[in-house]
């Protein structure tokens, strides 16, 4: 077995550990921090069911973004939906036998890779072309887009130009999951793809990618508008009562 095999094996164990521990820590932190006042952006749903529906529209359709900026919405939605399909398609590397729904979406995944890359390119172009967005962009914003575009480009390269042995890739990852290391194909495109993916996993819990869990914890979106019907009291605030 090659040194690269061991390198990527260790890298993915480490990256997975950091991703999982980091995300659990952040999500627990969000969940633990109280929201002392009811601050949904109104008009807001008055019931929990309504809140679930609002959140679904935000996450699946980017409803607020749609109302605020069609260009960002178009590129952003294209990127995220592409990303979602690509990730779903990738599940075939980690499941044996492959789940039926994962098998069924395989053909769509193909176009999804391109949609994802096009969306990212559009978003990146805006960071240069629109003065206001140029002003608020930090180097890390550009790097994040470069990272994702790099992952998409190397993936598409493997798919269409320099094929790799995907059966062996799958054997490697199934092996990792059983702590039984199998050889990883020797392929520069694959090395880059996997290296960038590991970086993505590591930075996820310490970067703006926290927007993914964050959206579910945003009080202005996840609270029901029912302050006259129910008393909403955070533990630290309850101590101030009746003094």
């Amino acid at each position, binding site marked *: 077995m090659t040194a690269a095999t061991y390198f990527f094996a260790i890298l993915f164990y480490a990256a997975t550990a950091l991703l999982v521990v980091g995300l659990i820590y952040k999500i627990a932190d*969000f969940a633990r*921090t*109280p*929201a*002392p*006042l*009811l*601050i949904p*952006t*109104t*008009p*807001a*749903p*008055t019931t929990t069911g309504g809140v679930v529906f609002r959140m679904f529209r*935000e996450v699946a359709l*980017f409803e*607020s*973004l749609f*109302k*605020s*900026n069609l260009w*960002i919405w178009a590129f*952003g939605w294209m990127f995220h939906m592409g990303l979602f399909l690509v990730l779903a398609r990738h599940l075939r590397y980690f499941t044996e036998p492959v789940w039926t729904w994962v098998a069924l979406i395989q053909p769509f995944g193909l176009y999804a890779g391109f949609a994802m890359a096009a969306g990212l390119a559009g*978003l990146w172009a805006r960071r240069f072309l*629109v*003065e*206001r*967005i140029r*002003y*608020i*962009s*930090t*180097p*890390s*914003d550009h*790097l994040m887009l470069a990272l994702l575009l790099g992952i998409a480009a190397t993936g598409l390269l493997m798919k269409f130009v320099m094929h790799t042995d995907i059966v062996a890739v799958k054997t490697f990852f199934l092996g990792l999951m059983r702590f039984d290391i199998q050889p990883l194909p020797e392929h520069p495109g694959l090395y880059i793809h996997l290296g960038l993916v590991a970086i993505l996993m590591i930075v996820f819990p*310490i*970067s*703006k990618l*926290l*927007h993914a869990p*964050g*959206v579910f914890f*945003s*009080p*202005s*979106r996840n609270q029901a*508008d029912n*302050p*006259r*019907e*129910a*008393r*909403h*009291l*955070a533990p630290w*605030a*309850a101590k*101030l*009562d009746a003094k």
Partner: protein
Amino acid sequence: MAGPEIKAPPFRDIPTIPALIPGAMAASKPYVANQKVQEGIGFRGELAENWQELAIEKMGDLLGKYRSLKVYMDSCVHCGACTDKCHYFIGTGDPKNMPVARQELMRSVYRRYFTLPGKLFPSLVGAKDLTKEVLDDWYSYFWQCSECRRCSLFCPYGIDTAEVTMAARAIMDHIGLGQKYSNEILAKVNKIGNNLGLPGPALEDTLQGLEEDVKEETGVDVKFPLDVKGADVLLITPSADFFAEPHIDSLIGYAKVFHAAGISWTLSSYASEAGNFGLFNGSYEMMQKVAMRIRDSALELGVKRIVVGECGHAWRVAYAFWNTLTGLGGGGTDPFSIELQKQLDPTFRQPSHICEVTWDLIQQGKLKFDKSANDHRTITFHDSCNVARASRMGDSPGGQFDIPRNIIKAVANNYVEMEKSTVREKTFCCGGGGGVLTDDLLDIRVKGALPRMEALKQVSDHDGVNFMATICAICKAQFTKVLPYYGFNMRVVGGVHQLVSTAIKLGDEQ
């Protein structure tokens, strides 16, 4: 005030997004609260020597207490969707008035002191030390935010810059850098019971004068009761309603509604203020302290129902926070809430907005109007931000938009809606909300009114609109001041209950 003359920016032909003018408003700073005011409400008298340390400590404290702040600090992706949504950015072109850039003033410090990448690679992720320059920017730009939540409506995660502004102001108060206007008001309400520092006897005189005025005008004995034990309704209204124009005309309107419907009501001299500047400064404790006066007054007077007058942020605090702060509302099972619940009549919404009261009475056929009395007016309605995006009226979402409009249409014949991207939840702030309604900030107030003034100009040119109704004391005061800068008469603004007052038939005169 010294400095260059304040001028309104020109109307834009097709509302375009302004080009960036960095630093355009960096010099806008409100007066700093003096030592006496600061200490009077429990803050440090002046900027502490170790202010930086104290600020970071306070930020950590707030991050642990407010999920909003923590999630908002972590979640922004710099997508830019909010950049053109703030009236202060539209009116000034200053990039730091773009909501995300305003948040970034705090986020850059958050990253530096509370996140790993910010500690290791500050310039990569835009993290910054909290220096004196950064603090100067905070004091300038967190006092150029009216906490109107328009940005929150448009952000894909609902990131509410108002929450960030409140936190920043709480931190600045904590280190001894308070704003004179807001903190003086907080001192007054704590001492005297209202924001204007109007003592009980003066209030009694004013109300008596009003009774005489109304009697003279209508021939009817409309009462303005004060501190009446056992009245059914306790009315809590912004103190500007007691003396300022055009606010006072709405107060007369409420009194006429209660009179015509035969509802017994009272004002309270102890709780003669609906406004709550604790909200603007992000102080839960202060907000609770101010709100407690209302609880105490309600218990003392033994009323069955609490009604709130025309005031935007006050309605937010009343509707969304009173139950939390004072147990005034339903659902609480603790002794603290039950005490009030036992007394208040659960068949009414607690608290109710005066517009809910009036609209319910209209629907029940208990009020009669002569609509033609308002025929000299062509009316439009300006939604106030705190009512529109932070509260509700009636039983379904959006009632806060429909109920005031329904009332206007019930009392007047000529109603025109403004451009649809500027009304309902998308409404633009008047430019004076959130604690900036002071003359030392007049420049930003005038500029921030631009989007609303453009929409008003359109309906005034095309449809002859000559009256813009609103249900907020701050909107009324702000517009009265800035309308002339845009070539309008200051009397164009007024209250919804001012229109009610004009048209209502008082029953006993027929």
